[in-house]
């Protein structure tokens, strides 16, 4: 047992209805052999107070859904989380969420349960997914005492995997948007970034199919092979 665990607040006490809703969530399974098109995907982006994995907090969540191979405008998720102890920091300038917007946001536990229901058992796509996965995982644990189990795939990895000809190292979302000459709407809030990421993902899926990557499982396997290769290269 961690020495400092007694310093942390105990597992959060959840309202009954939230507890009930958590209990009804579907079981998360491994990726399957169905086609890329048949798979429902959730594309996610977070705004956080900063980039520190252990200290910073989730401010807002935007997510869209890719279903039947297309982005479905009827299924969108957008929440700003209430966050009392927030200090105004320079990152306000980036995410544009002022203290007022955040104070007016949703109750975090409720918003996170909403998100879990929205995600269901679909795999999650995000740009620099490990960051979002970690931040979201922490928030889930803190507010819900719930373990985030969804499979995350990193679009920042899929892109160079299926477009090796791009030769952009350490490319950010903007680099890939430029590379594919994507016209994206106004960016830099979680929803718009999620949508841009989703549009990127549609292109990448189309390229993946051309490279005989047909199922989500297949994609996951090719990704880990590719990452291993990258690591051997760099050492």
């Amino acid at each position, binding site marked *: 047992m961690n020495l400092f665990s007694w310093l942390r607040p105990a597992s959060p006490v959840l309202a009954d209805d939230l507890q009930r809703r958590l209990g009804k969530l579907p079981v998360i399974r491994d990726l399957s052999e169905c086609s890329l098109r048949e798979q429902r995907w959730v594309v996610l982006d977070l705004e956080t107070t900063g980039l520190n994995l252990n200290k910073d907090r989730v401010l807002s969540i935007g997510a*869209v859904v890719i279903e039947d191979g297309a982005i479905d405008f009827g299924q969108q998720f957008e929440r700003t989380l209430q966050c009392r102890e927030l200090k105004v920091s320079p990152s306000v300038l980036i995410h544009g969420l002022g203290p007022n917007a955040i104070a007016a946001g949703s109750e975090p536990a409720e918003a996170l349960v909403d998100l879990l229901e929205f995600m269901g058992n679909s795999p999650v796509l995000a740009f620099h997914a490990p960051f979002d996965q970690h931040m979201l995982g922490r928030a889930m644990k803190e507010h819900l005492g719930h373990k985030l189990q969804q499979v995350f795939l990193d679009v920042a990895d899929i892109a160079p995997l299926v477009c090796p000809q791009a030769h952009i190292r350490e490319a950010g979302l903007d680099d890939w948007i430029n590379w594919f000459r*994507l016209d994206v709407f106004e960016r830099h809030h979680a929803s718009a970034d999620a949508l841009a990421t989703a549009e990127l993902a549609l292109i990448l899926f189309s390229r993946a199919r051309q490279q005989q990557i047909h199922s989500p499982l297949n994609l996951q396997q090719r990704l880990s092979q590719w990452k291993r290769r990258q690591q051997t290269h760099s050492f």
Partner: protein
Amino acid sequence: MSKADAFTQAGKTAVLQNIQGTLQFLQRFPPFNQMEHAHLAYLVEQCQLRFYGQGESIIKPADGPVEHFYIVKQGRVVGERPHTAKGGTETTFEITTGECFPLAALLGERATRTEHLAGEDTFCLQLNKLAFIKLFALSNTFRDFALRGVSSLLDQVNQQVQQKAVETLGTQYSLNTRLGELAMRHPVTCSPTTALREAVKLMHEQQVGSIVAVDEHKAPLGIFTLRDLRHVVAEGIGDFNDPIERHMTPSPFYLSPDHSAFDAAIAMTERHIAHVCLVKEQRLCGVVSERDLFSLQRVDLVHLARTIRSAQRVEQLVNLRGEIGQLVERMLAHGASSTQITHIITLLNDHTVCRVIELTLADKGDPGVPFSWLCFGSEGRREQTLHTDQDNGILFEARDAAHAAEIRGKLLPIAQQINNSLAQCGFTLCKGNVMAGNPQLCLSRAEWARRFAAFIREATPENLLGSSIYFDLRVVWGDEQGCAQLRRGILDQVGDNRLFQRMMAENALRNRPPVGRFREFVLTKKNGEKATLDLKIQGLTPFVDGARLLALANGIDANNTLERFRQLVNKDVIDRLDGAAYEEAYHFIQQTRLQQHQLQTRENLPYSNRVDPDSLNHLDRRILRESLRQAQRLQSSLTVRYQL
């Protein structure tokens, strides 16, 4: 979900950032920029965003009835159709950011006729058919757009679809209305042996202007109208116990209930009748009167035609010209098509010409020689607009050259007076002197035949120009036999003369439609004025010339450009889809030209065929561009056909 719920829902989601972003994107393009916010939000919320890699098929004929409406968010969609003549495929249209497809197939509930492919990496917003229908019903702006899109070339349309859509969607009715729908009440009928008194009593009771005598199978035998009653009374036939068959007009003219109001108006104008029987499977099922048409459109076409034919002096005809202008104005306002309008103008012009000839003959005395009055050019093709030159000539029969010269001597003074009277009536004197008063155009049949044969034999530039005017000849007044023989002669000679056809084809390529390789208009600037294009010469002439060449080369005896295309399709000379596309394009350019003329008249500007594409709205501009592209396709098909 109820409609109201759907909108509350849409209202809520409209705050979502991404919906907002897409809304703002769509608001840059028609018709979305004019749609109500709630409708637009509903549209976006129902949309899916789909990606198509370059070359990927989006929809194709084999997919069956179209299930989605698409808006291009980014990229380029091209229409590809198998090329019948050359094999392979050709691009028939391009659709780019903010534009939609496939409207005609969607409204017609059929498969698309053209495969739509991604010309480059493309994102499309995709709306399911149910949501499309709902929007179509809710948003006037969207509905108008969808219907106009259908009449445009954006989607290789057939007009039937539009007409049907207009009918079922209850938009304002027009001259295209089926007669069956106009003749609401049952026709008043009697037997041929009914006494006159009884028949008139029936008419009076039923408040109608006509009664139809029918046999036991309801087949019409004759019609008796108030006009006939006037005759009976005026002639002082006292016995109203006579059977009606003695006074009725036997074998009355009839149309089927599927004919259009326009057909009835034309029939009444041509035949000077005020009632048209509707007959289906040999049974009378209705009567349409002049008044039914009036109440429909207030188009006093029939009245006008009758006034022209009974005018007593040329001055009266001059006054009536103004009324023709007003009639055209009203018809345009009521949404009549350019084909209908040019047809009506031609019809009224024909009446005017006939009346002028009759009045002149009454004035100068009958020369005692039968002759036919010919017309050429647009009048010959029945494609006249209000602003029109005289292009006419005289045809008569003569034994030999000396006889011909003698007759010419008698006819020329009459012809010159006719030309002058027509000029008074607003038919501008022809600058090139292509007029019957010119001795070179007042010829016997043998002389005309020689002249035409020379055109075909010696293809000089003047002769080619001549053939493009004279070979569209027809008779306006007088016997039609001689002219028909001349036309047959032309068809035989042109059909056999491949060299002449080739020269005509080269001639048909002179006027290039002003669209560039890269989708924009190529405009001419004159003395620092705004850049414009000529709708007649650069837009219509390529179609007219192409249709004439193909018709003459393939033995088709029609003059009208659209009729020529139709017959060329029937003869498999041109592809059915191409024919429809040419027709549609021609139609649109002519419509734009007429609207342009009306606008100029209203603003007291000199009349001109030049138009500045920037003065058109976004949609019209785009349709015009596509129409001109069709002219380009027709020309390139001639290049292939005649190996130019």
